[in-house]
C-alpha cells in the first residue's frame, strides 16, 4: 500500500461527516480543538468590547455614559468572561488540538468527552451572553462575595446566572482535564518515556491535574451559594450560623490556582517555542519540570493572600505571605532557564519571538508587583485599588495573552497549512504592546493615589484624570491592534500560499505530519527515542507516511491507536475509538436543561433532565466493548497487543480515577467548610446537633460494607449487595434528616443535608454502574470483555462506601464532642 492509498483509507475511517452535520457529530480532536479556539476567541472579543466600555466610562471624570447598575454588570462580566470563558477554554482548545500531535498519537483518550465538554462550554457560555444582552447579568464582581451576591444584596436572577452558568461551563474544564491527564499518561507514541516527553506535555499534565483539584472548591461554593439563594440554606448568613468568609476561602482556594492554571500552559508554550526561535534546545529540562510542578503545588497554598484585609490574625497572614514570596522562586528558575536558552542559541526576531519578548517585558513587571502585594502591609494599602487591576493585567495579558499570540503565530502554519504571507502581524504588535503599557502602567500609580477598583465614576481633582485619559486612549490603540491580529489570521487562513511542512525547523512530532493535519494525524505511529524526534531523524515524516510505524495498516477498518506504559512508554494496548456521533451534543443539551430548570426555578425540569442525562450516559457506555474477546492483535513493527477494553485497567478506569480525584477534592472542600464554620463562624454551636444513634450507625456501616463487597462479587450478586447497601444507607439518611428537618434553620443543618445528599448520590452512582455490569452479563458479554467495566464499577463502589462512612462520622462527631 503506498502513502496515498493509505491516506485515503485512513481518511475514510477517521473523517468527520461532511458539511454542517460534521460540526455536531465530530469527535475528532483537530476539529474540536479548532472549534474550542474559535469560540474562545469569540469570548475574548466580547470581553474586550466590555473592556472598551469600561475604558470609555472611565476616560473622563463624572462620566454619565453608564449608570452604576450597568457598569457593575459590565466589569463583572468582563472579568468573568475573560477568566472562565476565554482563558481556560483557550488552553483547553490548544491542548485538545496539539497534545495528540505532540505525543505522537491519533486522538485524545475520550473523543466523545471532548465533544461533550465543548458543547457544555458553548451552551453555558450562551447562557451568560443571554444574561448580558438581556441586561440581567451578574453584577457583584467576578469573585461574587456574599452577602452582596446573595439574596440580601442581589435579589434578582443576576447572580443565579453566574452560579449556574459558570458551573455548567466548569463541566467542560473538568472533562478536558480528565481527558488531558489520561492522554498524557497513557496515550503516547511507543518509546516516549516520561523523561522524553515534550515539555509542553509536562505543563499540560500539571495544569490538568490543577484543574481537577482547583475547580471543585469553586463548584462546591457555587452550589452552596445557589442553595442559599434558592432554598434559604444559610451557609453564608451570619445570623444563622453561616459566615461570609467561608465563600472567600472556597473561592480563592480555586481562584489562586486558577491564575497558575492560566499561566502554566503559556509557560509550556514558551518552553516549546523559545528554543526553536533560538535554534537550540531548552536549558535545564529537569529543572523546568520541577519548577512547573512546584509552582502548581505551591499555588494551592497561597489563597489567603487575597484575604489579607479580612481580619485574619497576623501569623495566619504571615504563613501566606511567606508562601507567596516562595512561589516567585520556581518562576525565577523558569525565566532564567529561558534566558539561558537564548544565550546558548542564536535567537532571531521572528514574530513569535517578538511576542515572547513582549511577554518578558510585561510578565516580569507583573511578577515584581505580585511580590510587592505578597508583602502584607503593602497589600493593606494596595488591595482593591487600581494597583491590583494593573498588576493582574500585567500578569494575565503579559503571562497569557502575549505568549498565546506567540503560539498563534508559531502554530498558524500548522493550523492552516499555509505560509504567513501578509505582514499585518508586525503592525499589530507595535499597536498592542505599547498600547498595553500605556493602558496599565500608570494605573498602578492611580491606585496608590486612592483610586478604588470597581468604581463607576470619579470626581476631578485627585490627580487621576490624566492617568485615566491616557489609559483609555491607549486601551483603544490596543483594541485596534487586536482587530488587526484577527484580520491577519483570517486573511492568512483563506488566502496565501501553501507553505512547507515544518517552517521553523522544530523537533517535536506535531511537525511530522502534512499540514493542515489529516483527521488521523499520523499514517503510522512513530517509535520515539529522543526528546526531539525530528532532530534525531529528519526523514521521520516520510517514513511515517509510508506506514513504517505502528498501526500503519488500516485493514481492520476502525479508529485505532496505542496506549503505553506510564513511565517507560513501552506499548501496552490497542485502543479502538468510537466513530462520529451526535450523542455528546445531545447529552450536553439535556445537561443544559438541568441547569436551565434550576436557573428559572422550574424544578420539575431538574429530575426529568437528570434522568435524561443518565439515559444518555448509559447509551454512551453501552456502545463500548464487544461481546466476545478479540485476543491479542497485530500492532505493526512486530508488536502484538491486547485490546484496551479487555485488560484490567482500561482507559475508563484511569479516567474514573482522575475524576474521583476531583470528586474527592470536592468532598474535602465540603469537610473543610464544615470545620471552618464550626471553628470560626460567630453563631455556633447550633441549637441542637443531630445524634444518629446506634441504629443509624449500624445501618451506615452495613450499607457501606455491602456496597464495597458488592464491587467484588459477581455481576448479579454484586448488584443485589449494592442495592441492599443503598437501601441501608438511605434509611440511615432518613433517620438523620428527621433530626434536622429544616435545612434553612442553621448552617449546621444545611451542611448535614448536603453531606447526606452527597453520600446518597454516590450510592446511586455505584448502583447504576454495577447494574450496567450485570446488564452486560445478561447481554452475553464474556468475562474477559466485562473485566475492565467491573473494575471501574468497583472503583466507584469503594468510593461510595468511603463517602458513606466519612459523612456519617462528620454528621455524628460534633454531637459526640459536645
Amino acid at each position, binding site marked *: 500500500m503506498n502513502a496515498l492509498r493509505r491516506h485515503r483509507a485512513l481518511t475514510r475511517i477517521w473523517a468527520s461527516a461532511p458539511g454542517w452535520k460534521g460540526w455536531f457529530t465530530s469527535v475528532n480532536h483537530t476539529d474540536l480543538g479548532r472549534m474550542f479556539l474559535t469560540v474562545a476567541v469569540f469570548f475574548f472579543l466580547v470581553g474586550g468590547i466590555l473592556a472598551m466600555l469600561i475604558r470609555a466610562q472611565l476616560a473622563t471624570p463624572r462620566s454619565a455614559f453608564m449608570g452604576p447598575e450597568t457598569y457593575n454588570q459590565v466589569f463583572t462580566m468582563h472579568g468573568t468572561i475573560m477568566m472562565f470563558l476565554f482563558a481556560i477554554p483557550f488552553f483547553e482548545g490548544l491542548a485538545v488540538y496539539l497534545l495528540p500531535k505532540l505525543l505522537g498519537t491519533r486522538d485524545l483518550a475520550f473523543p466523545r468527552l471532548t465533544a461533550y465538554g465543548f458543547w457544555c462550554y458553548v451552551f453555558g457560555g450562551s447562557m451568560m451572553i443571554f444574561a448580558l444582552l438581556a441586561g440581567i447579568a451578574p453584577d457583584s464582581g467576578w469573585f461574587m462575595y456574599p452577602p452582596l451576591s446573595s439574596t440580601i444584596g442581589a435579589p434578582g436572577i443576576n447572580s443565579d446566572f453566574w452560579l449556574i452558568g459558570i458551573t455548567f461551563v466548569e463541566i467542560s474544564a473538568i472533562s478536558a482535564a480528565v481527558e488531558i491527564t489520561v492522554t498524557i499518561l497513557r496515550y503516547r507514541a511507543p518509546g516516549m518515556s516520561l523523561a522524553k516527553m515534550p515539555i509542553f506535555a509536562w505543563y499540560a499534565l500539571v495544569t490538568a491535574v490543577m484543574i481537577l483539584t482547583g475547580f471543585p472548591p469553586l463548584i462546591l461554593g457555587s452550589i452552596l451559594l445557589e442553595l442559599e439563594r434558592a432554598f434559604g440554606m444559610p451557609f453564608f448568613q451570619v445570623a444563622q450560623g453561616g459566615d461570609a468568609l467561608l465563600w472567600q476561602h472556597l473561592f480563592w482556594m480555586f481562584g489562586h490556582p486558577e491564575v497558575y492554571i492560566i499561566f502554566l500552559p503559556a509557560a509550556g508554550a514558551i518552553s516549546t517555542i523559545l528554543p526553536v526561535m533560538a535554534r537550540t534546545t531548552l536549558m*535545564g529540562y529537569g529543572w523546568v519540570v520541577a519548577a512547573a510542578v512546584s509552582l502548581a503545588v505551591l499555588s494551592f497554598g497561597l489563597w489567603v493572600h487575597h484575604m489579607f484585609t479580612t481580619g485574619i490574625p497576623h501569623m495566619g497572614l504571615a504563613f501566606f505571605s511567606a508562601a507567596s514570596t516562595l512561589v516567585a522562586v520556581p518562576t525565577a528558575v523558569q525565566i532564567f532557564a529561558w534566558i539561558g536558552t537564548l544565550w546558548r542559541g542564536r535567537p532571531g526576531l521572528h514574530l513569535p519571538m517578538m511576542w515572547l519578548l513582549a511577554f518578558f517585558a510585561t510578565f516580569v513587571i507583573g511578577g515584581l508587583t505580585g511580590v510587592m502585594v505578597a508583602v502584607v502591609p*503593602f497589600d*493593606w494599602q494596595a488591595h482593591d485599588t487600581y494597583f491590583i487591576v494593573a498588576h493582574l493585567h500585567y500578569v494575565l495579558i503579559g503571562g497569557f495573552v502575549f505568549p498565546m499570540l506567540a503560539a498563534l503565530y508559531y502554530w498558524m502554519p500548522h493550523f492552516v497549512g499555509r505560509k504567513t504571507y501578509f505582514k499585518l502581524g508586525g503592525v499589530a504588535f507595535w499597536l498592542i504592546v505599547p498600547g498595553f503599557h500605556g493602558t496599565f502602567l500608570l494605573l498602578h500609580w492611580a491606585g496608590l493615589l486612592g483610586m478604588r477598583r470597581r468604581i463607576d465614576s470619579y470626581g476631578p481633582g485627585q490627580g487621576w484624570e490624566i492617568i485615566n485619559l491616557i489609559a483609555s486612549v491607549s486601551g483603544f490603540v490596543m483594541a485596534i491592534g487586536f482587530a488587526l491580529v484577527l484580520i491577519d489570521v483570517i486573511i492568512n487562513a483563506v488566502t496565501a500560499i501553501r507553505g512547507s511542512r515544518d517552517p521553523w525547523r522544530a523537533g517535536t512530532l506535531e511537525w511530522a505530519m502534512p499540514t493542515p493535519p489529516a483527521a488521523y494525524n499520523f499514517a503510522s505511529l512513530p517509535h520515539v527515542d529522543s526528546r526531539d524526534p525530528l532532530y534525531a531523524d529528519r526523514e521521520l515524516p516520510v517514513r511515517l507516511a509510508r506506514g513504517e510505524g505502528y498501526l500503519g495498516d488500516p485493514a481492520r477498518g476502525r479508529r485505532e491507536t496505542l496506549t503505553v506504559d506510564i513511565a517507560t512508554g513501552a506499548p501496552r494496548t490497542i485502543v479502538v475509538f468510537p466513530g462520529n456521533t451526535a450523542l455528546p451534543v445531545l447529552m450536553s443539551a439535556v445537561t443544559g436543561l438541568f441547569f436551565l430548570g434550576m436557573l428559572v426555578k422550574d424544578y420539575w425540569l431538574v429530575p426529568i433532565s437528570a434522568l435524561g442525562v443518565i439515559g444518555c450516559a448509559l447509551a454512551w457506555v453501552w456502545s463500548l466493548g464487544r461481546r466476545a474477546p478479540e485476543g491479542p492483535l497485530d500492532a505493526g513493527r512486530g508488536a502484538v497487543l491486547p485490546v484496551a477494553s479487555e485488560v484490567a485497567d482500561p482507559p475508563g478506569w484511569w479516567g474514573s480515577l482522575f475524576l474521583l480525584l476531583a470528586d474527592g477534592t470536592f468532598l474535602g472542600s465540603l469537610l473543610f467548610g464544615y470545620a471552618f464554620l464550626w471553628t470560626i463562624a460567630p453563631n455556633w454551636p447550633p441549637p441542637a446537633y443531630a445524634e444518629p444513634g446506634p441504629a443509624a450507625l449500624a445501618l451506615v456501616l452495613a450499607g457501606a460494607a455491602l456496597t464495597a463487597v458488592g464491587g467484588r462479587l459477581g455481576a448479579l450478586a454484586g448488584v443485589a449487595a449494592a442495592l441492599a447497601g443503598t437501601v441501608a444507607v438511605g434509611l440511615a439518611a432518613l433517620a438523620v434528616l428527621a433530626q434536622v428537618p429544616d435545612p434553612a434553620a442553621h448552617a449546621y443543618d444545611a451542611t448535614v443535608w448536603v453531606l447526606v445528599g452527597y453520600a446518597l448520590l454516590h450510592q446511586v452512582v455505584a448502583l447504576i454502574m454495577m447494574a450496567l455490569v450485570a446488564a452486560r452479563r445478561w447481554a452475553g458479554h464474556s468475562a474477559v470483555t466485562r473485566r475492565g467495566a467491573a473494575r471501574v464499577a468497583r472503583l466507584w463502589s469503594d468510593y461510595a462506601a468511603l463517602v458513606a462512612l466519612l459523612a456519617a462520622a462528620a454528621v455524628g462527631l460534633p454531637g459526640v464532642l459536645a
Partner: protein
Amino acid sequence: MTTLVALAGCEESLSAVHPAGPAAATIATLWWVLLAGATAIFLFVAGLLAWAWRRPPGEVAERPFVIGLGLAFPLTVLAALLAYGLVVGERLLPRGGADVVVVRAEARQWAWSFGYDDAPGRVTEDELHIPAGRPVDVALTSADVVHGFWVPRLAGKLDAVPGHVNVLRLEADAPGRYGGLGSEFNGVGYVGHRFTVIAHDATGWQAFLAGEGE
C-alpha cells in the same frame, strides 16, 4: 458640604503615598523600597535578555542560570523582603497601650456610623472624630454586606465583615480632615460610600467628647 469642597480641591487627599500618620508613613517607605528594588531587578533582567542578541556565540553553562540566578538570587532577595514585611506588619498591629482611644465603626450600604468608647451613646454619621497624635483602634463591623474601611493617608485598609469585629490601628500626626473610603465593592452606591476622619487637637477632642459642636 464644606468638607467635600475642601477635599475635592486637594490632589492628595486620598493618596497612600502622601502619608499623614505613622502607619501610612511606614507603608509609604516600604513602597519606595519595593519600587527601587523592583526597578533594579527589572533592568537587570532586561539587560540579561538583551545581551542574548549581543553576546558572541559560545558555550553557556546551565548552573549559573538555574542555580545562581534562578534559586540563590531570588531566595536572598525574598528572605530579606519577607523579614522586612513581617517586622513592619508586627509594628502596625493594634497592641494595647495606656493612651489608645477606641472607636467603633459600623458599615452599611452606603453609610458609616461611628461610636466612641470615651463618649458612650455618642454616634456620628459618615464623620469619624479622633484625637491627633494618639493611637486609635477602630473596631469594625457591618450590618449587611462586606465593606472595607480605608483612610489612605493614615493607614492600610481592613474589612468590616458581618458578625465579626476587626480592629484597625490608625493615628493622625496632626489635626485636620482626612478622606475615608469604603474600599470593598458593595453594590450600586459604592462610589459614594465615603466618610471623613476629623482629627482634633487635645482641647478639640475634649470638646468633642463633651458633646460640643453638635
